[in-house]
């Protein structure tokens, strides 16, 4: 079909890395929407500017999120992308798929949309790129039939995501997949009906390697960790050494707390100094394993720069057991969201609110004790607030 000339995009078809232009052209064989997308993108490449307008409000019955409105700013030239809305589809936790399920998703999208997707978006959803307003509801109905549901958008709980965890990883300290799925199912209302001051992201990583970037990218991060001693298999340690692996240089010397000693025969770990950074375990997975008492550290506040600068999540609960039905975790999340909902300004993320109100106020509101694990160091300024009850009221 390819009726449009796309000399600039054509230059991105060559090269060793898989080309998105090939996928665009493949979709354009079947879909006039994809064909016009290709044309409009070529125009952007020529003019060095985007050609999409702000989204209007579009959606499906009973939901306030999951569909992002998108319109072309030059519909007279590209009428088939005049409306080109995105649908966010909540991915199966851990991004595991059976091919029959994936094919069903493809069939629905070929029927209702451009045939173009992102597998996946940054938050985790499968992104269906481009459909018209009148197709949104029928597409949603067919997606439901195929076993899929929409993810979050706007001032809602965004689609929670989790690392592969116990599905494949020997380092998993918590069942990241089950916890994420459980929370997702329990909080469907919060995902589909925006009711918060702004977006709220939850990410669950099963160990401190944090393969879902939860500290950087979520308002509430759950990260698997352990108490007690790293489990050592001395036979396997010896096997690594015998195979020529330099335990002193690659493990002990790079241990950030210098809590390991290797005398050429025996590996000794001073566990009380270990901060569970995973380096030694990452390098010697056969010989070293996380300790047996497992749980998670809960952190809050992570976000990208808009509005008041980027934040990395910080510790609010050093250790919590994460076991079905995840009551303690969910109760804490609800308390945090209630407080944020009560006090947050429009478009104020949780981290920004805590920054504005103070950890002291936050901790009291959600009923958490202050502990040294929360800070790198105590404050250096003397601008200290006291609660009224800290003060002796009656002056003698």
């Amino acid at each position, binding site marked *: 079909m390819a009726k449009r000339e796309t000399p600039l995009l054509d230059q991105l078809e*060559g090269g*060793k890395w898989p080309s998105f232009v090939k996928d665009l052209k493949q979709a354009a064989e079947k879909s006039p929407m994809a064909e016009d997308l290709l044309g409009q993108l070529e125009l952007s490449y020529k003019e060095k500017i985007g050609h999409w307008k702000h989204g209007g409000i579009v959606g499906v019955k009973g939901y306030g999120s999951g569909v992002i409105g998108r319109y072309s700013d030059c519909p007279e030239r590209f009428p088939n992308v005049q409306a080109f809305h995105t649908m966010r589809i909540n991915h199966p936790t851990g991004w595991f798929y059976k091919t029959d399920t994936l094919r069903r998703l493809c069939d629905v999208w070929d029927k209702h949309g451009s045939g173009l997707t992102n*597998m996946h978006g940054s938050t985790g959803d499968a992104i269906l790129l481009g459909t018209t307003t009148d197709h949104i509801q029928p597409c949603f109905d067919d997606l439901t039939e195929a076993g899929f549901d929409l993810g979050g958008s706007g001032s809602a709980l965004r689609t929670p*995501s989790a690392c592969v965890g116990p599905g*494949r*990883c020997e380092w998993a300290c918590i069942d990241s997949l089950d916890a994420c799925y459980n929370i997702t199912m329990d909080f469907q209302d919060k995902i589909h009906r925006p009711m918060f001051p702004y977006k709220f992201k939850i990410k669950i990583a099963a160990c401190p390697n944090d393969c879902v970037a939860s500290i950087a990218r979520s308002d509430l991060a759950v990260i698997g960790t352990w108490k007690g001693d790293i489990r050592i298999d001395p036979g396997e340690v010896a096997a690594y050494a015998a195979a020529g692996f330099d335990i002193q240089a690659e493990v002990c010397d790079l241990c950030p707390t210098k809590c390991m000693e290797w005398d050429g025969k025996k590996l000794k770990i001073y566990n009380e100094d270990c901060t569970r*950074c995973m*380096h030694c375990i990452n390098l010697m997975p056969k010989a070293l394993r996380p300790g047996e008492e497992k749980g998670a550290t809960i952190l809050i506040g992570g976000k990208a720069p808009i509005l008041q600068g980027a934040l990395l999540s910080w510790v609010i609960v050093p250790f919590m057991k994460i076991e079905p039905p995840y009551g303690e975790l969910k109760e804490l999340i609800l308390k945090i969201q209630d407080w944020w909902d009560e006090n947050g300004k429009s478009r104020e993320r949780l981290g920004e609110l805590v920054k504005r109100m103070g950890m002291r106020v936050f901790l009291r509101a959600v009923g958490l004790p202050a502990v040294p694990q929360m800070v790198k160091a105590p404050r250096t300024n003397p601008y200290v607030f006291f609660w009224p009850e800290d003060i002796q009221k009656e002056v003698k």
Partner: protein
Amino acid sequence: MAPQTDIGPPDYKTMLPPVIARNYGKWRYHEIPEPGFMVHTAESGEKLYTVRAGSPRLLSTDHIREICEIADKYCDGYLRFTSRHNIEFLLSDKGKVAPLLAELEKRGYPVGGTGHAISNIVHTQGWVHCHTPATDASGPVKALMDEIYDYFVTMKLPNHVRIALACCLNMCGAVHCSDIAILGIHRTVPKPDNTRVPNVCEIPNTVASCPTGAIRGDMKTKTVTVNDEKCMYCGNCYSVCPAMPIADPDNDGISIWVGGKVSNARSAPSFSKLAIPFLPNNPPRWPEVVDAVKNIIEVYATHARKHERVGEWIDRVGWERFFSLTKIPFTDKHIDDFDMATETFHSSTLFKWR
């Protein structure tokens, strides 16, 4: 019948290959015999073979069907995607690994992205589908991956290098904690169209959207003005007020940030820091951006010690050394002037000459 709602995503448990279902939570260790090929061994002794392949992320349904066809042939119909958009073929039969690798090579799927490699670039929509981009996303990613392809299919770097691209400061791609971040930026102030502002914008929201307080609202006329001196072109006002367009083909472009990480391995997660304030948008292959990123990777590969991430290497040698080795000019734009700026200043005499 009322339409069904809130059914949630498909249950992941129904998507797991039987070998995973049998050994769920009971994995013992893993090995990476070659780039893109991982073997996970369970306590039971059973093994799961994973082959990781690169993807453009923007996939047509027919491309997905092709992936399904491959997964049916070699993986009994089971696969997954990674948090960096790679495709993972999950096999229980070791005998099928070699034929799968051969088929992937024949079909042009790069296999790699494991261990000390450059994995796929996490990125945003860009001109393909976003309304606020300062650059494209898929295009620069494709151009760069073509050039650094070798680092995807090998494991020869000091550690892995995570690259991410966001096409504007909104950072849907949350690139702010990457070894190398490619960030689209605007450099000119938004121009409020005050004939449209009263109809399409809420003034208090628009005023509140500005991180530096550069926007002043006039509630009477329902218009806004922008203080050019205070505006740093983030575009957030445009996100809430469509009548304040900010895109500028001649001045929009890309900035490069380095040294961030998300994992807790060895050192704490950290933000990426500014390396190059501006590079021009030069579609379709963004040569300036590709060269700049390649240069940083190569200097890092030459000078970092084994297991050092980009940020850990820079922390050890110092930023003075980073700028002298990469030959990137240091400018006044590199010095922070936002609210926590002074924390980044050298309040000591403990610096290096280069």
